[in-house]
């Protein structure tokens, strides 16, 4: 499965490389578009020195880890949102009869390598924040763990959104509220949001484990909501649980599929 995925990704990358100018422009475009988030954070911090109890470097650290996780998931798997077009047009039939997993096919179809621009942007912000924060190594080990877990959580969210398309054939945009909404939510310290919302994204939809809970550990901060300390280490568990739910939902969705019949 991994081999097929890589093979298809490579094929679409070579296709994109046939138009080098367009490819370069779109990569820069992605970098600048996501750079706008940083412009917004900068404008906020020209007006204040702390947001939700966190200073500029800490907010940039939380932003960088979330943005990097989201951009990786977006680069590798966000194409699954295309499934809504296939369901409506009935072309999902073609995908089902090919001897490759439908998920791999959809995720790689017209794979857009220029999304790497966003990955670079997220990584750049994270490096910049770490340079200002001075995190000791005994807590820094958590950073790669949280980025990997975050990527899995966002990927699971994309897959759940894709699975939901089997039900919401007319309204694919609803899934955006959770995928892009999740990305927006995690860009800021969760302490700015209301208590119920934070409990919701901790215990129901585990977005708090993308960067908030492990981030508190890396930054060595008390939880402003006083949630248990051990939650900080649960990111990989939350990611695994999300992935399991997503796999089950995706399978149920594929089984639910009825062709358009025309």
């Amino acid at each position, binding site marked *: 499965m991994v081999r097929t995925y890589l093979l298809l990704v490579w094929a679409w990358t070579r296709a994109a490389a046939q138009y080098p100018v367009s490819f370069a422009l779109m990569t820069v475009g992605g970098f600048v578009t996501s750079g706008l988030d940083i412009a917004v954070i900068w404008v906020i911090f*020209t007006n204040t020195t702390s947001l939700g109890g966190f200073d500029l470097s800490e907010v940039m650290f939380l932003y960088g880890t979330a943005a990097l996780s989201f951009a990786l998931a977006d680069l590798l798997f966000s194409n699954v949102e295309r499934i809504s077009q296939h369901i409506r047009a009935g072309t999902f039939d073609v995908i089902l009869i090919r001897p490759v997993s439908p998920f791999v096919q959809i995720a790689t179809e017209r794979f857009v390598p220029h999304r790497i621009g966003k990955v670079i942007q997220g990584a750049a912000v994270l490096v910049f924040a770490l340079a200002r924060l001075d995190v000791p190594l005994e807590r820094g080990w958590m950073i790669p763990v949280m980025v990997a877990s975050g990527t899995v959580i966002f990927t699971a969210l994309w897959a759940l959104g894709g699975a939901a398309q089997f039900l919401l054939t007319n309204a694919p*945009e609803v899934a955006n*509220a959770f995928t892009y909404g999740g990305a927006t939510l995690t860009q800021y310290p969760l302490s700015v949001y209301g208590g119920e919302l934070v409990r919701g994204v901790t215990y129901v939809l585990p977005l708090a484990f993308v960067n908030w809970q492990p981030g508190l550990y890396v930054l060595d901060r008390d939880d402003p909501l006083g949630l248990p300390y051990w939650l900080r280490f649960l990111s990989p568990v939350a990611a695994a649980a999300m992935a399991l739910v997503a796999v089950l939902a995706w399978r149920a969705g594929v089984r639910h599929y009825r062709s358009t019949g025309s």
Partner: protein
Amino acid sequence: MRLIGFGFRRHATYWAAAAAGAFTNTVFGILRAYVLIALWQARPGLGGYGVVEAVTFCFLTQSYIGPMQVFGGGLDLPQRIRTGDVALDLVRPASLQLWSLSEDLGRAAYLFVARSVPPTLVGALLFGIVLPAGLATWAAFMVSFVLGVVVSFGWRYLVALATCWVIDDRGLSVLSMILTTFFSGLMLPLVIFPGWLGTLARALPWAAMVQVPADVYLGKTPVAGSLAFQAFWAAVLLGAGALATAAARRKVVIQGG
């Protein structure tokens, strides 16, 4: 006028898409509202807004996304230029620009009902929002809102028409989206932009799409001056659009055959 009606009915067919859009706008409105509340708690009275006014601003701007097409697009024109169908539009006995404007106003009127009202109501229920001070403010807001849609159309029409010259419109639409989302006040109120950046942002046409109608609603700005500002940019953009249409007409004649 009839075209406005057709534009309205055409978009009314896609009610599920509009409902999904309204849902997404509402979710983002809630997230943004929390960030603004945190900022205004740290700096009460920032930019001349109170907390409730900042929240109102947030939900108003989310509700503009549909009618003003803040993320760009909304016009069929780029696609019709690429396929060559635009030649048909140009031989019609009606100005291409006025034709598109009428359709766009119909689209905006429908999206105002479908995508502006729900997020604002949810915002009012969850956080509480400010209502305009009186009937005069309501009237001024409606005029300002329509002018905002016209300015937005003027800009999007220029971007769309540029497809005649650049063929691949994706790069341009990304650039347009960056300029519009940042300089319209959608992401943050322009009143808290620092120094010269704020002065510049408030003078550019994008401010006329989101920031000015919201300020008129909140009663934060002299009405006559704001409407004149919007009318000025509407006239400039529509004028540029008319010139570009004339130029595009010659361009199409050269390509024809």
